[in-house]
């Protein structure tokens, strides 16, 4: 049950493209932030915010809302772009990102921006907060669902596995973790034919040689493994996760993604983890992603400009209803 007005059939790919463009534009404008991670998780996030979450943009603190935690907090700009498109903040406000006195901090700050459910940034901590929310929902017999989006790099942190074991022990089927499995991290240069023979394992996928699905399963979680850019698979996984598990296991969705997805320059390139695009790259990105540009080229009926108006911000700067 969605409780606010969004299009009956939101055009998820176009929304994701618009959000990706906002990420590129904002990071270029602010000369700070991350690109690779926000882009890899974007289809997951757009699906969540436009299809799955029970939320009220005009009432961000609605007590019965689903909870969402972006544990990989460095991808904050991706979340802000989605929150803006979804009506939690004016799209123009994205320009304040990282500029001082902004609600849009480099990493999500729950004390500044209504619509956030936790502060994150120091990696590996979000799942624990999600466990607390899910436990509290159980204790209070409340039926909201808690969602935590994790990076496959950040789950190298040991604290994640503390939360993982507690979640299965308390049978938190009202908790879903989503792992953005893009296979790259900041300094995790992937192995290449030149290096495979010589490196000691430091130029590898963060989980090289580890069967992550088996690990979660062994910890007592239900595992769904999907293509994190396939909207049908994403939507099905979310519905299954919310429905719960017959044996009350928490659910993890391991979503295979491509870092930098949607921008050809950035796809699978670890150096786009955090980078300020050059003028030349920005222009290339604009041609690929800017809705204005695409409108000129695209003969389809998609009127992204119209959608922009339809998703007019529902909250003011202070989070109060417009």
């Amino acid at each position, binding site marked *: 049950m969605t409780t606010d007005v969004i299009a009956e059939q939101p055009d998820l790919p176009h929304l994701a493209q618009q959000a990706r463009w906002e990420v590129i534009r904002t990071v270029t404008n602010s000369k700070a932030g991350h690109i690779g991670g926000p882009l890899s998780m974007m289809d997951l996030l757009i699906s969540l915010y436009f299809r799955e979450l029970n939320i009220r943009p005009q009432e961000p603190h609605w007590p019965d809302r689903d*909870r969402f935690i972006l544990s990989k907090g460095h991808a904050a700009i991706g979340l802000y772009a989605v929150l803006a498109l979804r009506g939690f903040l004016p799209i123009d406000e994205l320009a304040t990102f990282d500029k001082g006195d902004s609600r849009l901090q480099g990493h999500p*700050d*729950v*004390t500044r921006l209504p619509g956030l*459910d*936790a*502060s*994150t*940034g*120091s990696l590996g*901590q*979000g*799942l*624990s*907060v*999600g*466990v*607390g*929310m*899910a*436990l*509290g*929902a159980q*204790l*209070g017999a*409340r039926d909201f669902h808690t969602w935590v989006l994790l990076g496959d790099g950040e789950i190298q942190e*040991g*604290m994640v596995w*503390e*939360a993982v*074991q*507690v979640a299965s*022990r*308390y049978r938190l089927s009202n908790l879903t973790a989503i792992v953005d499995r893009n296979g790259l991290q900041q300094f995790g240069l992937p192995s290449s034919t030149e290096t495979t023979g010589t490196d000691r394992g430091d130029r590898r996928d963060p989980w090289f040689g580890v069967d992550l699905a088996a690990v979660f399963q062994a910890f007592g979680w239900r595992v769904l493994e999907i293509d994190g850019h396939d909207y049908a698979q994403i939507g099905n996984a979310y519905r299954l996760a919310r429905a719960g598990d017959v044996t009350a296991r928490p659910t993890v969705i391991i979503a295979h993604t491509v870092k930098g997805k949607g921008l050809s320059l950035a796809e699978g390139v670890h150096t786009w983890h955090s980078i300020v695009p050059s003028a030349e790259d920005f222009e290339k990105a604009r041609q690929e992603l800017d809705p204005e540009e695409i409108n000129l080229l695209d003969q389809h009926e998609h009127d992204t400009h119209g959608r922009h108006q339809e998703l007019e911000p529902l909250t003011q700067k202070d989070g109060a209803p417009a």
Partner: protein
Amino acid sequence: MKAMRDAWGDKLVELGRKDPRTVVLDGDLANSTKADKFAKAHPDRFFQMGIAEQNLIGVAAGLASLGYVPWTSSFTVFFTHRAIDPIRMLVAQSHANVKIVGSYSGLLIGAVGKTHLDIQDLAIMRAMPDMTVLAPADNTELLAMMDWANEVDGPVYLRIVRDPVPDVVQAGHTFRPGAVYELRQGTDVALVGTGAQTGRLLTVHDQLLTEGISAAVVHVPCLKPLDADGLRDPLSGFELVVTAEEHSVYGGLGGLVAETLTAAGPSPRIERIGIDDSWGESAPNDFMLEKHGLSPERITARVRAALRAPVRN
């Protein structure tokens, strides 16, 4: 005499009865910290997080976001060291309503040695923006602090000790954040204490009096926030101020007093007594107090010597 940890456990049970928001998270030490009393009385609101203190703090923050008031149970050192990053980001930076209770604080923790001694908690927590830092002198003050903490929306660090401590404050004592208490008036030297050490300073006061030395005793139960004038006023006019704490001489009460007095112009000489840049060891309480200069006898001797020593210019 009831041990402070028992007083804490009993009070948790009472809060749980009066306030449905009360929840307790334990790091597999409830029978040591005495949070087990709450587990028996309110099993549905007791959560066993196991030996994983970082996650314990994160879960507490999640529960707090739903309106619960989580109290945490483990040894001080595992919160202020092992779990300090979640405390920083998820509690202090997030202004989460989590009550971090460090049991077995100070030097008298039952002969377990330097791995379990936390000689830095006050320094660490004082440097944590938005954190209230509390060290009660006795059970009466502890209970007043818990009543206050239960009502205030925000992070609180509460430092409690393992063993029984003598009464220091009067019955009916209410807690006011930042307040400093002048427990004895004096003219020759001012003694400043926090936590259970304040009780020992009252013994020092009595001993010095028999030697004709008049010592004021000032108690600082709330290291942050602090009413700076409330600390300066009872210390004004003294040439010698002695601080004593079961903590490193760096960054705790001694640091607080030095910072506060020197910020307001010429300061008296300040002798800081505490553990002197070393790690401690496994030993009985009396040994620890004696070795680190915190026993009433050692403090009395140090005050006597300090009063005789010429002031260096």
